[in-house]
């Protein structure tokens, strides 16, 4: 179990409960978090589940895999903290995770 905070571009925060094993994208969709589109349903094939991981959490989530890095080429405004949320698996270690939703997925 982990509590995850999604911060919208306008500063609005939404805290959701996520079960271990699900992805951060699934937690967002389940709780109707705005701005996470996930057109491909988590197949790492659309880059519309882009988030920025809070600096304090980047070490815990780790960086993108090679496949995810390739897919991030299709995202807009990619930064060092960019991840595709469908590729972050929820574990107890991510309890308290903070991610920011970009201005626009595309």
């Amino acid at each position, binding site marked *: 179990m982990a509590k995850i905070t999604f911060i919208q571009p306008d500063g609005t925060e939404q805290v959701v409960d996520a079960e271990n094993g699900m992805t951060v994208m699934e937690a967002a969709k389940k709780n109707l978090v705005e701005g996470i589109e996930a057109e491909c349903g988590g197949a790492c094939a*659309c880059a519309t589940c882009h988030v920025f991981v809070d600096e304090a959490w980047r070490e815990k989530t780790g960086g993108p895999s090679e496949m995810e890095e390739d897919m991030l080429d299709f995202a807009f405004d990619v930064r060092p903290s960019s991840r595709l949320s469908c590729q972050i698996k929820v574990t107890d270690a991510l309890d308290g995770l903070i991610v920011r939703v970009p201005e626009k997925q595309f």
Partner: protein
Amino acid sequence: MAEGAMNGSTGAPVETDAVIVGAGPVGLFAVFELGLLDIKAHVVDILDKPGGQCAELYPEKPIYDIPGLPIVTGQELTDRLMTQIKPFGATFHLGHRVDALERLGEGRFRLVTDAGTQFLTKVVVIAAGGGSFTPKRPPLAGIEAYEGKSVFYSVRRIEDFRGKDVLIVGGGDSALDWVLNLQPVANRLTLLHRRDEFRGAPHSVEKMRSLVADKKMDLRIGQVTALHGDNGALSAATIRAKDGEVRIDCSRLLPFFGLTMKLGPVANWGLNLDENLIPVDTEKFQTSEAGIFAVGDINTYPGKLKLILSGFHEVALMAQAAYHIVYPGKKLLFQYTTSSSSLQKKLGVS
């Protein structure tokens, strides 16, 4: 897509029994079910390959719920469907989008593609899935004003780029192919990518790198953040690079950020829509208009599931109804492929 898109054609209209809009798994299986009933079909898809979502979004991912195929990838399923429908010799128009649907009366329809191809048909099968795959538009302020004038998502005419300062953004095959094709005609060509690694074919990457080494083009690592110009005429773009923001002069921009599914032209065909889906009956999978059917992910009815399996069922029933439109007054005999010699002849197995 680029190649198909340039194949403009404005010849005589194509006369056919059925036009299938969309070559996703459901559109493909529609060829089979219609073919068994002697209905010839043309298939149009904006993608440059068949398979719809299966081929574009998850070619290497496994699907576990296709009856009889315990595990099959999106691409394998597409390939198998193409093999299965081969006997029916449907004509594929790939890289083309169906833009318009007109009712000509007396049960005839005219469909027109973005390349100007016209179809005259008795039956329209809309298998448009989640909509037509469309290039992603970078969310840059004011970009709409430049589209079609200075900003393009595909190359229709190379001449539009002759002598221009061209900025291409992206790191895959589309970006690299157009870098190599446009470099000889452009005044100056710049490739911009967010990192110094490219997904494109290794030989294209090599060619691009040698052009850069020979100072025949520029490669920049960074991202576009703003466009400058007026009245649709682009003059420069601001890019954010590692060492800060720079402005580069350019009069043409080609952004390649992949594709997204947008309902697209189907919305303008005068059909009833329910949240971007087309309501149909569950006997014929016909829309509110006779002769126009909707199957697969694009349709909706009580209990609808967006599954490939459901789409396959839908096309079988749709084909029965289409038969009575194409062959009015003829009786349709229900037959099995296992035991009917006439069906087997059509399949080329007897």
